[in-house]
């Protein structure tokens, strides 16, 4: 429900801007910065997987877990069909360590928030309704984390009526404690996205996008021999809007009556 509400924010804002923004002239190479540069809001759903190999562990898998993403998108138009695009974002990259089969029950769900700054080229095709492709790179910082779940507790026999280890679980939900030896909090990688944008008025557009963000840096520091790396792979589906600075200025002028 919270994710749906977050996703609705840009749509509402876009609607307000659409209703109030005056018509501006179409973008072309001759126009100035205020008309080339757009800024807006964006939010949506994230779905992260930890790409690694734990085949040596008994009945254990990593599973993908959903989350949210919030962003401030920015675009600088170079041509009518290509622009530089970025969206400063806070994205959850969640995953779950899960025991399966006869050991099922215990799990650890990690909910990690990353602050990210991508830089991409946005290639568009179409008229008022455009398809676009984003291709670029990003850098991020692992801001915070939380882990919740259930694990075996071999030193508390009050948890179940029997003393069977496999059913003797304790529940936890706590802040993730970073390890300065193990955790690499800086992340970089590449991204690619496909989406569609609709230009309500010149300088004002709403868009939806599906994006894959693939880390190229290990989630761990290089702290041991034979380290098996871990990479976040995050799919996001977002909705947002962009408005040019010129349109924002026009809106202000209209409000102040000048």
């Amino acid at each position, binding site marked *: 429900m919270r994710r749906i509400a977050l996703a609705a924010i840009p749509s509402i804002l876009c609607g307000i801007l659409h209703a109030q923004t005056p018509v501006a002239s179409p973008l072309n190479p001759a126009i100035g910065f205020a008309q080339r540069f757009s800024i807006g809001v964006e939010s949506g759903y994230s779905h992260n997987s930890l790409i690694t190999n734990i085949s040596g562990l*008994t009945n254990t898998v990593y599973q993908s877990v959903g989350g949210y993403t919030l962003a401030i998108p920015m675009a600088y138009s170079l041509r009518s069909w290509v622009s530089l695009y970025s969206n400063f974002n806070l994205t959850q990259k969640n995953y779950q360590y899960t025991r399966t089969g006869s050991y099922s029950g215990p799990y650890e769900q990690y909910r990690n928030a990353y602050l990210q700054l991508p830089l991409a080229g946005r290639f568009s095709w179409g008229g008022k309704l455009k398809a676009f492709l984003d291709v670029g790179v990003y850098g991020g910082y692992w801001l915070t984390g939380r882990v919740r779940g259930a694990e075996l507790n071999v030193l508390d026999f009050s948890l179940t009526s029997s003393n069977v280890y496999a059913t003797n679980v304790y529940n936890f939900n706590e802040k993730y404690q970073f390890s300065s030896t193990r955790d690499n909090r800086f992340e970089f990688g590449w991204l690619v996205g496909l989406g569609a944008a609709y230009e309500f008025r010149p300088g004002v557009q709403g868009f939806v996008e599906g994006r894959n963000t693939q880390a190229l840096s290990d989630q761990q520091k290089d702290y041991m021999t034979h380290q*098996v790396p871990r990479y976040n792979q995050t799919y996001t589906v977002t909705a947002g809007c962009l408005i040019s600075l010129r349109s924002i200025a026009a809106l202000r002028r209209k409000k102040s009556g000048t």
Partner: protein
Amino acid sequence: MTRFLKRRSSIFLSVLAITVVSLVVSCDKFAPDVKAPPTYSDATYSDVFEAFWNGMNTNYVFWDIDPTNWDQEYATYKPLFATLTSFNSANDATAEKYFTQMTANLVDSHYTLTFQKSGNQVSPALNRKLAIDKLYPDSIYQLPATFFKNVVASKYIDPSSLIMGTDSIANAGSKIAFTVITGTIHNSILYLYFSSFSFSQAVHTAPALNSFFNTLANLPAGIKGIVIDVRSNGGGDTVDLDELIGKMIGSPVTYGYSHAKSGIGRLDFSPAAPAIVSPQSGAVALTIPIIIIADHLSISMAEITALAVKSLPNGTFIGTTTWGANGPLLPNAYLNGGQFSVGSTNFGISVYTSSAALKSTDGQSYEGRGIPPDIWVPETGAAYSQNDDLQLDKAIDYINTHP
């Protein structure tokens, strides 16, 4: 214009194609393989070394506190194992020596290597203690097997209250003696000695255990304190902690936290799990002193029980620092850590190691160091020759001076 649109289309499609190909190719390219230890080849000593090193790297639960530089061990011993080119008894002995050397300083005091072909066993903790004993005689003085019957039962326990028994019980594939002694001292202290945590196997020892718990449940007014004696106790079933201490408390007591492995990385640990002793049916919330006597040969559950007693507001630990093996043990698959085996017919090793690490409520790990007593009183050969039990003397004195 048409040419320009065509160029745009081809750029767009090129970028799209590269992107899609990258997506498909990238997903599974990161996958170095660290296998389960028993699944490695044992075709050469180097293969067994590789399996052992990786098995330890993944399954050992003390890497966050262990001083051993495991990467350095890899760099040092990999070329040495490579020189052992064919399986024979001389190379077996050399390989055993290398494995012994590279594990000599591991803090896990349960840790034991069993070389499957020769049957030789190596316990780094035992070797360290024997080395200390050479420098300081009596430092690991071992109470004689007859001590509790000949000295404690004969000299200290009120004869009319004395109940004791011995069973032969199964322990790690062999039979050991399980002895229980109970009774009162000066009609004012309730005493219990047991040689291992094996309450569920009690037959001849059952009367002594039942007598102790019955007395505890209907504690005579004259009893001023409880003494639990776990000296030279090698440990056993974790559930016995609740059976014993859970009969003396009115509410749950957290005495520490354990953590286990939760991943393939050396420092992948699960969140801390509280170690709790809980009141049992018929428990009496005691306010009188509860003394536990333990020594350097109190191991595993005996030490964990000492830690639990130290956590009681009326609990006191008297004796010497315990062995230092505090981690619980269970089959590897439960916690993705602990015991494992490598190799097989050519050269195999069974690795006995803790499945989880225990820390006290203040975050201290006593693994490899032992639980320190509240009141340090050493037992010596000289005292034994005089039929004196210095540690029990101190416990009696403590109870008499702490009403």
